[in-house]
């Protein structure tokens, strides 16, 4: 990896230290925080409870949730695609489509799978697609959120450009709230791992209240979002 | 219990009946009242306008006036809050004055706060048959953190129908010199406050800070409106005819 350039840092930071009345801080031990209220929220809740909380939260972020048993997934996915207007569909290169045996179902529609060889064409397909389908990596009960740890093959455009976004959520990915998701990421950072370039936590369809504080659903990102909550054990 | 009255400059200059009502209420609660003669003004007008040195003069006068007091009680949330500001007005190196200021701050109470939280009394045997609403003064609720005491006291006043004031936490637009320095804005704020008072249908507006009341009442009378503006001390001292004591001087701004 070529290192990027850093310019004008020293005078800038020296000014800060000077104003703070001391020398530059070269090392620092971050304190343990006296207040950590985030650790108490939904502490000790069972998966059952979290599920209930999640489903309620999805309603408040205008997202339909369909609860599905694994063996029904292919069929229910088919149904959902039809319900939301059918193809064209765009998906990432994600092993979970194979693991959950969904490729056959998908191929019944006009579907494009992200292919690095096809370069810009992928984006065009995504922009033209009616539906983008993805898997949630971590799911947050409190806010009805799906967390995507994107890489070049599980592309960002899939949950961003199409009109509708279908997200398949394996129940095992459910955690109480953003706290647990960031803990996971934080641990990886501290272990020296290079985290994904684009980590996106999405809670429902895009929206805006910029016009007279009237809520409009669906601005630049997807206009509709539906979750398929799958019992994956 | 020995209580030192801190009546406030506004009360001495314009609303002495509030000071009298406060005196009688506290006496009825078996407080031994004394009035330190050195008291003048808490210094808010200068402090809030940024004139720290001039405000400090006022502060030192007050600190000395109340040095011997055990409990300092005042019918003004903002003045009590100003006393609590005194310690920060002195440099950390000014140890003596800082300590004295802390001493005063720790023994100062707003009237309702004192009656409910220190004396532990809520029913003063008062009566005031009227439909009323209550304006919560900003400095009392936010700087003193006292939101409950006035309501507890008013809930026991016989005949009083207290209706909630919409947006009661919104400032009335006084803010001391703000009311004249930023008059056009202050005007809009007090008009909105009065609008909300009218929405309640109340005949009486009660408050705990003469600054707020002076502002609201001044606008109400200018607009020829009929709502009476009353300090809570007047309500609390109002006994039924033939009851025990009540202040016998002519009262402004009260009665039915």
């Amino acid at each position, binding site marked *: 990896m070529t290192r990027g350039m850093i310019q*004008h840092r020293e005078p800038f930071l020296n000014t800060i230290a000077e104003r703070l009345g001391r020398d530059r801080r070269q090392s620092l031990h971050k304190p343990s925080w006296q207040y950590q209220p985030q650790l108490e929220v939904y502490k000790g809740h069972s998966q059952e409870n979290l599920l209930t909380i999640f489903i309620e939260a999805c309603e408040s972020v205008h997202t339909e949730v369909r609860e599905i048993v694994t063996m029904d997934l292919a069929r229910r996915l088919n149904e959902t695609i039809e319900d939301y207007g059918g193809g064209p569909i765009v998906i990432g290169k994600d092993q979970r489509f194979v693991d959950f045996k969904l490729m056959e179902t998908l191929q019944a529609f006009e579907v494009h799978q992200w292919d690095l060889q096809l370069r810009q064409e992928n984006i065009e397909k995504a922009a033209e697609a009616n539906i983008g389908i993805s898997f949630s990596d971590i799911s947050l009960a409190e806010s009805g959120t799906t967390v995507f740890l994107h890489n070049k093959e599980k592309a960002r455009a899939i949950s961003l450009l199409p009109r509708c976004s279908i997200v398949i959520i394996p129940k095992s990915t459910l955690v109480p709230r953003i706290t647990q998701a960031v803990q996971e990421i934080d641990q990886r950072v501290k272990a020296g791992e290079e985290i994904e370039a684009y980590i996106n936590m999405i*809670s429902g369809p*895009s929206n805006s209240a*910029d016009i007279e504080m009237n809520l409009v659903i669906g601005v630049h990102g997807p206009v509709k979002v539906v979750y398929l909550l799958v019992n994956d054990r | 219990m020995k209580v030192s009255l801190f009546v406030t400059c506004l009360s001495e200059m314009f609303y002495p009946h509030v000071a009298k009502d406060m005196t009688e209420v506290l006496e009825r609660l078996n407080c031994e009242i004394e009035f330190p003669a050195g008291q003048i003004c808490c210094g808010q007008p200068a402090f809030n306008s940024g004139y720290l040195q001039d405000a400090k003069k006022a502060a030192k006068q007050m600190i000395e006036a109340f040095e011997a007091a055990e409990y300092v009680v005042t019918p003004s949330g903002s003045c009590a809050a100003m006393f609590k500001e005194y310690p920060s007005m002195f440099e950390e190196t000014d140890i003596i004055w800082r300590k004295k200021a802390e001493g005063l701050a720790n023994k100062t109470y707003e009237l309702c706060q004192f009656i409910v939280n220190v004396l532990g009394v809520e029913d003063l045997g008062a009566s005031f048959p009227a439909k009323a609403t209550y304006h919560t003064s900003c400095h009392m609720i936010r700087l003193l953190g006292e939101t409950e005491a006035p309501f507890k006291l008013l809930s026991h006043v016989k005949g009083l129908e207290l209706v909630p004031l919409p947006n009661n936490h919104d400032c009335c637009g006084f803010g001391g010199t703000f009311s004249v320095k930023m008059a056009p*804005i202050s005007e809009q704020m007090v008009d909105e406050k009065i609008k909300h008072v009218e929405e309640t249908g109340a005949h009486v507006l009660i408050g705990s800070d003469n600054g707020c009341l002076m502002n609201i009442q001044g606008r109400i009378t200018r607009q020829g409106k009929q709502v009476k503006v009353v300090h809570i001390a007047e309500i609390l001292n109002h006994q039924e005819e033939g009851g025990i004591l009540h202040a016998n001087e002519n009262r402004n701004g009260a009665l039915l």
Partner: protein
Amino acid sequence: MPMKIGTEPFFERVDHSLHDDFMRQAMVSAQDSLRNRKLAATTEDESLLDWELWRNAGEEIRRHTLENLDYYLEQLSEHYAARGGHVFFASTAEEANQYIQETIQKKQAKRVVKAKSMVTEEIGLNEALEDIGCHVLESDLAEYILQIDDHDRPSHIVVPSLHKNKEQIRDAFKEKRGYSASEKPEELAAFARKDLREAFLKAEVGITGCNFAVADSGTIALVTNEGNANMVATLPDTLITVMGMERIVPSWEELDVLVTLLCRSAVGQKLTTYVTGLTPDLEADSIDSPKDYHLVIVDGGRSKALGTEFQSVLHCIRCAACVNVCPVYRHIGGQAYGSIYQGPIGAVLSPILGGYEEYGELPYASSLCAACTEACPVKIPLHELLIKHRQRYVAGGGHPKVSEKLSMKAFGMGASSPLLFKMAREVVPTMLAPFTQDDRIEQGPGPMKLWTKIRDFPAPSRTNFRKWFADHTQKMGDDL
């Protein structure tokens, strides 16, 4: 457009705003709505257990971070650069703009899309880019609306187009972009979606702000609802992020707390629709990601607050909770402040960044009701900082009226002399007798005129409370 809004003097701006009926209605309605949403998502949300603990957590994190700002900025720059991104530390707006101009010129790029960023407004970035022949398109719906409507200025940190009604928006779209549908918000938004979608796909450079940079991973976190920031950070080949230097957290752990405080305080949501962490990555064969990353860290006068009693103003997370509870803002709206930073935070910050000459009235445009201090999710003592500004202003930072200085001196003397006070008590009723009628004063003399213009003033009492008290006590003593 830079931080300053308009050229009219303060009282003219206020007067202008007080006569804008639509804006005033919009402010009242927006404040009531945003306040209630915040309450429902904070103090009234039992699942959070105790909102006060959250505020303490926020304050603790921000205080520590600012006290060690140099350390964390250094760490951020190291990690961002290690991932292949370029970092430019800009002490001034000019330096920031110059760097960004040069970067874009090197690429010979012209088409720029922007996500919402207060700091880019502050430094006047759009003008700087237009100066080099770029076409800059604002993609946040409110900023898009303002840009179309002859570069109107923002009136609220979070909802910049609050002062505009849908008819005005429809008319601007019609005139400038060939819009032909109705004033219904859904239709206006659908038009923006289509119009901007083209621009996103064709843009060469994307510019974002930064809600919080994560120091130990070199990540830029964006907190949005519309999806436009994600478009801007995904589709163009070059990504430039501009951040105010104080917008930083030590690690993802603190990001959790601050994002929670921000979303709930600003818009009453548990999380906004998109909470995105962007970290540079130069993977050549990734398609929907930038190939070139730049982070411009701006001081722009913020360092002036460090090491002073104003340091805590840099704790701000730009949630506008203070703006939403301010009774002054409620009536005069955002543009009357003459700064893109309005309301209580604006009244404290603008004079620090821009001086008392331009912004000296702002700290006085407050009744010190402290609603802002109460609302702030990171416990900035805003009303106290307004008083500190006033102290500096009268001590020589500004131009207080001589008459005011004199009357305050007189006050100081009077308030420390029982004799003077006694004289005042005795003399004032007589002095004001000519103006008194029916126990009130309707047209006061001199300084009282300002009061009596809109309010009656009570007649000074002739009753001497001290005498009453002395007699009363005597009487009580006699009765015993």
